[in-house]
């Protein structure tokens, strides 16, 4: 019989680590090492480091996690549930102790809030944030348990080891912060300064990147190296355009010109259809989505740039071809090719060279493609 009285959150006496938990489930050491190798590949660590990952996972207790949802759509939660590779959804459940998560937790109301408080009191936890935080009018645009998101975030991150902002809303303000930002929505880094914050943008975040970040943290007892936007280099260090499976068609000047045309059916480059791959940093083309099944460009639609700050404003209209950026070699190649083979009007290109963040605000006319 279970000890019913013991059903509160917090750290208990965990004997073994993740490996033991997995072995209890019938997952062999071999499969476990394979998983470590996959994670190692996602983290771009040398092969001889895989043993270190395994060692770390086999000895570590499940760190408590508080997953906060604010101005979110739960898309990152859903993505998290799709965590890839055999049994990874379960590995993640055993890797972490998710003590608070509105969408999945059994407890509700005050019992849910008590579980969170107990974890915060202990400290040393991870906070995962999904959704932006509204700051206008005293934060009344998002209240949970009668308290504002601003207050909840401040309290939950106190004593935390790190904060992971999943998805573009938590990382950069995302959708709610798009013009005219009615609620004063901001990302975590605008509010949390005393605890390290890792941004895992994307709309939603790719589950592989959550898993890899957590494993990195557990393995190296440090946070992964980040770029200027707070994004781990292992996942956001390269441009989509540079790893795109359609890049050869770009270089060859073979472009989709109409949806469903011959080039579209043959998998040619989507640049003229508005693909934002040339301005977007993400590992989408290499890790892909849903256990590597596919990714947006693979399914015939251009990248919308969802890992970039402010993409709802800077990358829209989504079907407008990106402007050239002077001095940027790839784009100038695009123009050379475009001028020669796709007859892109030079005037139209020049009109869009002003930089992307204010593009939506500045444009009054449709870009002339012809």
């Amino acid at each position, binding site marked *: 019989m279970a000890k019913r009285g013991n059903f*509160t959150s917090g750290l208990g006496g965990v004997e073994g680590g993740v490996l033991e938990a997995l072995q209890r489930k019938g997952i062999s050491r071999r499969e476990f090492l394979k998983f470590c190798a996959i994670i190692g590949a996602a983290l771009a660590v040398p092969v001889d480091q895989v043993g270190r990952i395994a060692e770390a996972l086999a000895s570590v207790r499940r760190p408590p996690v508080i997953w906060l949802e604010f101005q979110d759509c739960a898309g990152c939660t859903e993505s998290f549930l799709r965590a890839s590779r055999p049994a990874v959804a379960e590995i993640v459940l055993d890797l972490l102790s998710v003590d608070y998560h509105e969408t999945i937790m059994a407890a509700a*109301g005050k019992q849910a809030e008590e579980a969170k408080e107990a974890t915060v009191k202990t400290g040393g936890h991870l906070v995962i944030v999904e959704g932006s935080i509204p700051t206008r009018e005293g934060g009344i645009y998002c209240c949970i348990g009668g308290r504002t998101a601003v207050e909840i975030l401040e309290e939950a991150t106190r004593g935390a080891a790190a904060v992971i902002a999943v998805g573009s809303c938590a990382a950069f303000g995302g*959708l709610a912060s798009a013009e005219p930002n009615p609620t004063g929505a901001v990302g975590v880094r605008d509010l949390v300064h005393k605890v390290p914050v890792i941004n895992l943008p994307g709309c939603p975040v790719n589950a592989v990147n959550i898993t890899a970040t957590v494993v990195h943290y557990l393995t190296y007892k440090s946070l992964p190296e980040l770029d200027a936007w707070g994004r781990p280099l292992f996942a956001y260090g390269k441009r989509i355009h540079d790893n795109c499976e359609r890049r050869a068609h770009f270089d060859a000047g073979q472009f989709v010109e109409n949806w469903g045309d011959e080039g579209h059916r043959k998998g040619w480059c989507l640049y003229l259809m508005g693909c934002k791959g040339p301005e977007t940093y993400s590992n989408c083309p290499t890790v892909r989505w849903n256990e590597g099944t596919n990714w947006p460009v693979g399914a015939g639609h251009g990248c919308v740039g969802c890992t970039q700050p402010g993409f709802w404003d800077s990358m829209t209209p989504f079907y407008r071809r990106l402007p050239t950026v002077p001095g940027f070699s790839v784009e100038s190649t695009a123009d050379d090719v475009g001028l020669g083979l796709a007859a892109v009007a030079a005037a139209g290109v020049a009109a869009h060279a002003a930089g992307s963040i204010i593009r939506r605000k500045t444009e009054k006319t449709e870009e002339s493609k012809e």
Partner: protein
Amino acid sequence: MAKIVIDPLTRIEGHLRIEAEISGGKITGAWSSGTMFRGIENILKGRDPRDAWVFTQRICGVCTTVHAICSVRAVEDALGIQVPPNARMIRNILEAIQYVQDHVIHFYHLHALDWVDIVSALDADPAKTSQLAQSISDWPKSSADYFKGIKERVAAFVKTGQLGPFANAYWGHPAYKLPPEANLMAVAHYLEALEWQREVIKAHAILGGKNPHLQTYLVGGMSCPVDPNSQAGLNADGIAFLKDLFKKAKEFVEQVYLPDVLAVAPFYLDWAGIGEGLGNFLSYGDFPLTDTRSSDDPGNLFLPRGVILSRDLSTVHPVDQKAVTEYVTHSWYSYEDDREAKHPWQGGTWPNYTGPKPPYEYLDTDKKYSWLKAPRYNDQAVEVGPLARMLVAYAAGHERVKYWVDTVLAKLGAGPEALFSTLGRTAARCIETVVIAEQLIPWTEELAANIGKGDLRIHEQKHWDPSTWPAEAEGWGWTEAPRGALGHWIRIKNGRIENYQCIVPTTWNGSPRDANGQPGAYEASLVGTELADPEKPLEILRTIHSFDPCIACAVHLVEPRGNKTKIFRVC
């Protein structure tokens, strides 16, 4: 009279708060409040209507895809676009697998813990659990050893003392009625469903690049090319992949989900008389089987469109979208006259928070108390969702729906009146999943056959360029999201969005009171429910979860018609 509060009401999408008044152990009044607001429709103003679906899809990541479909249909309706057959069929397939996956997740991961006591599973006899499982289904994972393994796993998990998402719940509550063996079986299926959902939704990645938030819709069609002779389009390999996933989807639904519902329901038959609610139901219908000409003339729909009033299954009333209006009397918005209801094309609101300053203990429910508005149909509160769809289809004589509803009711020894309840909603969702899962493979084969005829069209090119559009246009898009009737209303002016408004399932079901004091479906359904322990209001969770709330969907903002659109074109 005591008032209890559940906030956050967990295991839903979004932020929902329920306040309930208790007298003599019974709920005498209930108030439903959405406590988060983003303003997506305001953000949409002035943008390219062809981009709208990308924005609106982010209204909800649990109901991913449905706001995208609804949005492109709204623009297509405004511009008079008829999408090619392949696009219509691909949309149906995407939405169908969304239903199946989403309903299963809802049952096992959001709703089941209202009925299943995980702790009790630790007392189960694995051999008896195996007997139980094998008596209700041919599902192969049913041996005594299998359940022994699950039990040991749960026990080991509990032993760690880190109960994570299962900590601090209402385990041991007297309203849990299942024997330990049924609880253990349900726990096993909770874990299996977690794996299964991840697998079957790969269909979205095949056709849409990724899930959640597919990237495959276009105003005028779809962006996934079809071509049997290309590596880059949907070819025979892609079709085979889809069919394999759909086979797994259907098997799980028929051999696990349905048998589980039928096995659990008899222990909770009293819930066939609890949680009824409004008795009025609305469905816009969905899954067009013929090419749709306009939103008002959608052709032949697999799930029919209709309204049922006052539980009268003898009449299915036609739907007129012009009869849809919204009140803001008890919502944190302002109209010129707060007692007036407005149609989405005419309606308008500005956020106007008048609630208590946080932190607060109670909302002032006599005044405004929610970010949800109060949609009404012909000025009546209606319920939407799987129950509404199944009732409309049943009453309209839909063959498969009728077969499955009658089969399930017969197995439970209940009449159709049992459907008007908390249990009825949960059963209807399962029935719908079975009915839709049956269509996955035939619809995929139909798509393959059409492609095989040489039809490779996926997009209506004629209206892609905004210069072909009229200076002004208005349209409405419709869909039946897993959670119910979803409508988007758009006004386009000079190639840009002039006004955009969504009325979504949870706005219907979770609405606050209107100017006439009519409660929304959640509020009405809770009244009269007895609570065994007001400190642990499990009964409230059961009924609210039976609706499958999605609050992120439900909260939105529109602007007044005629109000000059702000154009953000400063350099």
